[in-house]
C-alpha cells in the first residue's frame, strides 16, 4: 500500500514535468547533436568519435543537471507555497512518502530524458563513424554514471529546498555540482596541505559529492574500458549519498509547519 502511494506520487510528478514541457529540452539537444555531427563529419580528421562522445555526454550531463536543480528545488517548496500539499497530506499519505515519491518522480523524469538523449548520442555516433564499435558500449556505462550524478544532485536540491529559499537552494546545489566535479583535485590538494588547511580540505573533499569519479566521459571517448569495480563502488556511493540527502530532507520536512 505504502509503495503504491509512493508510486502514484512519483508518476504524478512525472506527469507534471511532461505537462510543464520539460522534455522540450530534447529539441535543443537534438539540434545541438545534429549540428555537431554534421560539422565534425565535414572536418573528418579521425577525431569525430572523440568529439561526438565528449560533446554529447557533456551536454547530456549539463542539460540533466539544469533540470535536476531547477525542478528539484521546487519539488516540495512549490507545493508548500501553492498549498497543493494540504489536500495530499490530509489523506493517508505520510510526509516521508510524499518526499520519496517526489524524488523518484523527478529521477524518473531524468531517466526518461536521458534515455532519449542517449539515442541522440548514438545516432550522431553512427552518423560520423558509419558503424558501431565494441568500445561504444562503454558510452552506456558513462551514461549510467551520469544518471547516478542526477540521483545525487536531485537529492541535494530537495534537501536544500527543505530549509532555504528556492534561489539559495539553486545556488547551493549548483555550487556543489561545480565543487564536486573537482572533488578528486580537492583530495589531492588535501593530501599536500598542512595543518588547518589540510583538515578543511579533507573535510570538504569528502563531504561534497564526488562527481569526478562519476565522470568517465573523456576516458570513454578515448575508447578506454571502465572497471567493473568502479561501476560497483560508484553505484554504492551514489545510492548512499542520495539516500542520506533524502533522509535529511525527510527529517527536516517531518517537523515543518506548513504555511
Amino acid at each position, binding site marked *: *500500500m505504502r509503495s*503504491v*502511494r509512493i508510486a*502514484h*506520487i512519483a508518476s*504524478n510528478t512525472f*506527469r*507534471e514535468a511532461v*505537462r*510543464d514541457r520539460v522534455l522540450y529540452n530534447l529539441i535543443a539537444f537534438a539540434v545541438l547533436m545534429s549540428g555537431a555531427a554534421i560539422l565534425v563529419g565535414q572536418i573528418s580528421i579521425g577525431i569525430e568519435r572523440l568529439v561526438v562522445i565528449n560533446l554529447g555526454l557533456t551536454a547530456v550531463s549539463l542539460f540533466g543537471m539544469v533540470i535536476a536543480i531547477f525542478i528539484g528545488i521546487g519539488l516540495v517548496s512549490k507545493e508548500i507555497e*501553492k*498549498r*497543493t*500539499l*494540504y*489536500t*495530499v*497530506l*490530509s*489523506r*493517508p*499519505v*505520510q510526509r516521508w512518502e510524499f518526499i520519496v515519491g517526489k524524488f523518484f518522480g523527478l529521477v524518473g523524469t531524468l531517466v526518461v530524458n536521458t534515455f532519449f538523449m542517449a539515442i541522440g548520442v548514438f545516432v550522431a555516433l553512427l552518423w560520423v563513424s558509419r558503424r558501431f564499435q565494441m568500445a561504444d558500449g562503454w558510452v552506456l556505462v558513462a551514461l549510467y554514471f551520469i544518471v547516478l550524478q542526477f540521483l545525487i544532485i536531485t537529492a541535494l536540491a530537495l534537501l536544500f529546498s527543505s530549509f532555504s529559499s528556492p534561489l539559495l537552494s539553486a545556488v547551493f546545489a549548483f555550487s556543489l555540482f561545480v565543487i564536486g566535479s573537482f572533488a578528486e583535485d580537492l583530495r589531492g590538494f588535501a593530501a599536500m596541505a598542512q595543518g588547518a588547511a589540510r583538515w578543511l580540505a579533507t573535510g570538504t573533499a569528502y563531504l561534497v559529492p564526488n562527481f569526478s569519479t562519476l565522470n568517465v566521459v573523456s576516458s570513454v571517448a578515448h575508447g578506454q574500458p571502465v572497471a567493473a569495480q568502479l561501476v560497483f563502488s560508484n553505484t554504492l556511493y551514489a545510492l548512499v549519498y542520495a539516500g542520506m540527502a533524502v533522509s535529511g530532507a525527510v527529517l527536516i520536512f517531518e*517537523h515543518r*509547519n*506548513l504555511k
Partner: protein
Amino acid sequence: MAAIDILGLAKTYSVGFWRKKPKCALQPLHLSVEAGEIFGFLGPNGAGKTTTLKLLMGLVFPSAGSARILGMEINDPQMKARIGFLPEQPYFYDYLTATELLEYYAQLSGVAAKERSRKVSEVLARVGLPDVGGMQLRKFSKGMLQRVGIAQAILHDPQVLFFDEPMSGLDPIGRREVRDLMEQLKQQGKTVFFSTHILSDAESLCDRVAIIHLGELRGVGAVADLTSSVQGQVEVVWQGNLVPASLKAFATECHGTGDTTRAVVPEANQDAVIDALRRERLRIVSVIPVRTSLEEYFVLKLKPSEAAAGVRS
C-alpha cells in the same frame, strides 16, 4: 464516542525574521463534536479557525495539547483514510483536469481501482460540475475550484468532514447547494465540522456551534440556547409618513425617507408592530431581519475583548 475530541490544542507562531516574537493564534482549545453532528466553528477573520483545522489535519504542529478524530491520533493514516478536508481557498495541481485530479486523490485515499472512475464522475455530478471533468484546472473559476475542493473532500466517502469556509467564493445558488449537501451528509450519518465567518450560513444549519475570537473559545452550544438571552432586530418599511403612536414604544429607530417610513424594532415586537400598522391601514413594503439573533450574540460576546485589544494596541 465523540467524532472529534480536541484536548487543549494550542498554537503559538513565532513571527518576525530577526527577532522572533511569539504570536498566539490559538489558546488551549477544548471541544468535542459528536458523531452525526453538523458543527459550526464561527469567528471573525483571524480568530484562529484555519489554525485549528490545520492542526487537526497535521499540517502544522501544536504548541500544546492533542486531539483525537474517530478515537485515533491526528497523524494516524488509518484515521486520514476516513476523513475529508476542504482547505480555505483551495488550490490544486492546475496542469491536471478535474477528473485526473480526483482520480489521483482517489488513489492516494486508497479507493479500489475498479471503483475510482465511477466515484469520480458521481462526485463531480454531486457538486454540480458534471460536464467539466475533462477541463484543465487552470481554466477553472474560483467558484468552480471551490466545488472541486468539496468534491475531493467527499470523494472517498469519509466519515468525518472538515470544511474551512465552504461557502466562500460561491454565488447564492452555490451556497444553497453546499448547505443542501451538508444536510445530505448529515442524513448519511456523517459528521461535518465547518468554519465560517458568515453567521447566516450557520444559523439554521448547525446542530451546535462554537464561537471563537482572538484564538479563544467564547461559547459552545445549540444556536437557540446561545441566543436565548439576546434578540435580533427587524427592519419594517411602510408607505406614507404616518407613524402610529403605539409604535413609538417599540421602535429603536424610526425615520421617513421620501414617501416611505423605516423603523428598526426588536424581533420579539415584530408582530405587534405589524398589527399596529394594519390597524392604521398602512401598506407594509417590507419586513427584513437586519441582525439575526446569532449576530446579536456575536456582537455581545466579542465586544469586551475587542475593547481590551484596542486598549492594548
